[in-house]
């Protein structure tokens, strides 16, 4: 077996383990929480009273206007000076959730607005409340349009979690750095880490295709392709 392959095989276990225990949970949890935050933010901006909408706009402005790495540093290294001490993982989780919340709120705002006004009226005309119309009629249609842009955000997030290495979360990329520190083989190890990220993103892309197909069954798109 060539040297590089041997090295990759030997370090596969620690890298995969770090991915399984830190990268994947961090991705899934911050995406799920971020989506909830994004939905709340989008609704606040679309339907909230002026002060609430302003707060939501301010939040999106701050998060989108500053680097993610800087945000993570502020949370993990900065907040202790005002007495807020967080472990690395929760700090990363908060940072990524805030980030995803801001970006997905813009997507959700756009897709909710894309559902025709007549659908709200149809829902109201059969007696639905705002909430029922939102949950039963508007969001299911918005979700369909949201799949491609949200998948983009999700895939970016998987890769962005490597930034958590900078605030001492022992995730996939940091595991690779550790092996490099003892083997002095950066090229091989970083390529191996890259391949694992690629595999994770590929799984998500496949899920996206499945989800789009599922949504296509009711739409005009399916006929257009037939």
């Amino acid at each position: 077996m060539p040297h590089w392959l041997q090295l990759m095989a030997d370090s596969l276990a620690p890298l995969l383990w770090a991915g399984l225990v830190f990268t994947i949970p961090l991705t899934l949890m911050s995406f799920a929480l971020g989506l909830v935050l994004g939905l709340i933010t989008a609704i606040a901006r679309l339907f909230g009273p002026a002060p609430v909408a302003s707060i939501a706009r301010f939040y999106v402005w701050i998060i989108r206007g500053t680097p993610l790495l800087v945000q993570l540093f502020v949370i993990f290294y900065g907040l202790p000076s005002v007495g807020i001490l967080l472990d690395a993982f929760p700090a990363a989780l908060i940072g990524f959730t805030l980030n995803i919340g801001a970006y997905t709120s813009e997507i959700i705002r756009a897709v909710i607005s894309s559902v025709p006004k007549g659908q709200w009226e149809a829902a109201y005309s059969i007696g639905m409340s705002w909430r029922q119309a939102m949950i039963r009629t508007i969001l299911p249609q918005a979700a369909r349009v949201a799949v491609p842009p949200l998948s983009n955000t999700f895939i970016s997030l998987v890769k962005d979690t490597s930034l958590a290495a900078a605030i001492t979360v022992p995730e996939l990329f940091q595991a690779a750095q550790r092996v490099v520190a003892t083997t002095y083989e950066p090229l091989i190890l970083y390529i191996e880490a890259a391949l694992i990220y690629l595999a994770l993103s590929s799984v998500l892309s496949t899920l996206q295709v499945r989800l789009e197909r599922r949504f296509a069954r009711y739409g005009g798109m399916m006929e257009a392709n037939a």
Partner: protein
Amino acid sequence: MIELTNIEKRFGDALVLKNINIRIPEGSVTALVGPSGGGKSTLLRCINLLEIPTSGAIRLGTESLTFVPQQKTSWQSIQKIRRQTGMVFQNFQLFPHQTAIENVMEGLVTVLKWPTERARAKAMELLKKVGMEAKADAWPATLSGGQQQRIAIARALAPSPRVLLCDEPTSALDPELAAEVVDVLSALASEGTTMVMATHDLRLASKIANNVVFLEAGSVVETGDARLLFTAPSQERTRQFISTINAANTYDI
């Protein structure tokens, strides 16, 4: 009985409905006709409060509601009126993510909290009534406009409303598809369904309406028995309007 008293509607500075007074008896079919921009749709949408009148009063069955300018109408009072109505839209507005039968069941299950099986049975019965039972499991996007509108009629009827409001129900359809919708609506009319429809389609109006309200520039120009109004309008403006569309000729003699 539906009673509209001194209804006025403003959009900003524009006064789109002026002092409208109409009484619609139970079991009758009333057509709102008149030129575009005359206020037909707005008036219809004021009945189920998709538009809130600026002032005036509405009475529907035992519920009544008075509107005062600048005063917000509570959700509960809107619902008390709206729950007694069903609406059919020009562009159908079926829920595209639900099958035909799911569309009809939606109000029963989500709003009235009926158990699914009971709602399904009622929905099937209504789909039969509009001749769409064979397409119960079809997605709206796979159906013709006429078929979609018939399902929309079944959806509007599902909660057993006191009145069915139709906003240009045939205007988005070619004459053949319009005919199948007209057939369904006229069958409902002969069963005694109370209906109010805003329409350009004078053939539809003359075929099923008992009463006609002619609206122009937000005011009622003339109102009366359908046959009389179409054949012998008392106002010059009404006569002009009817003769331009040549409706008198389509009225069967």
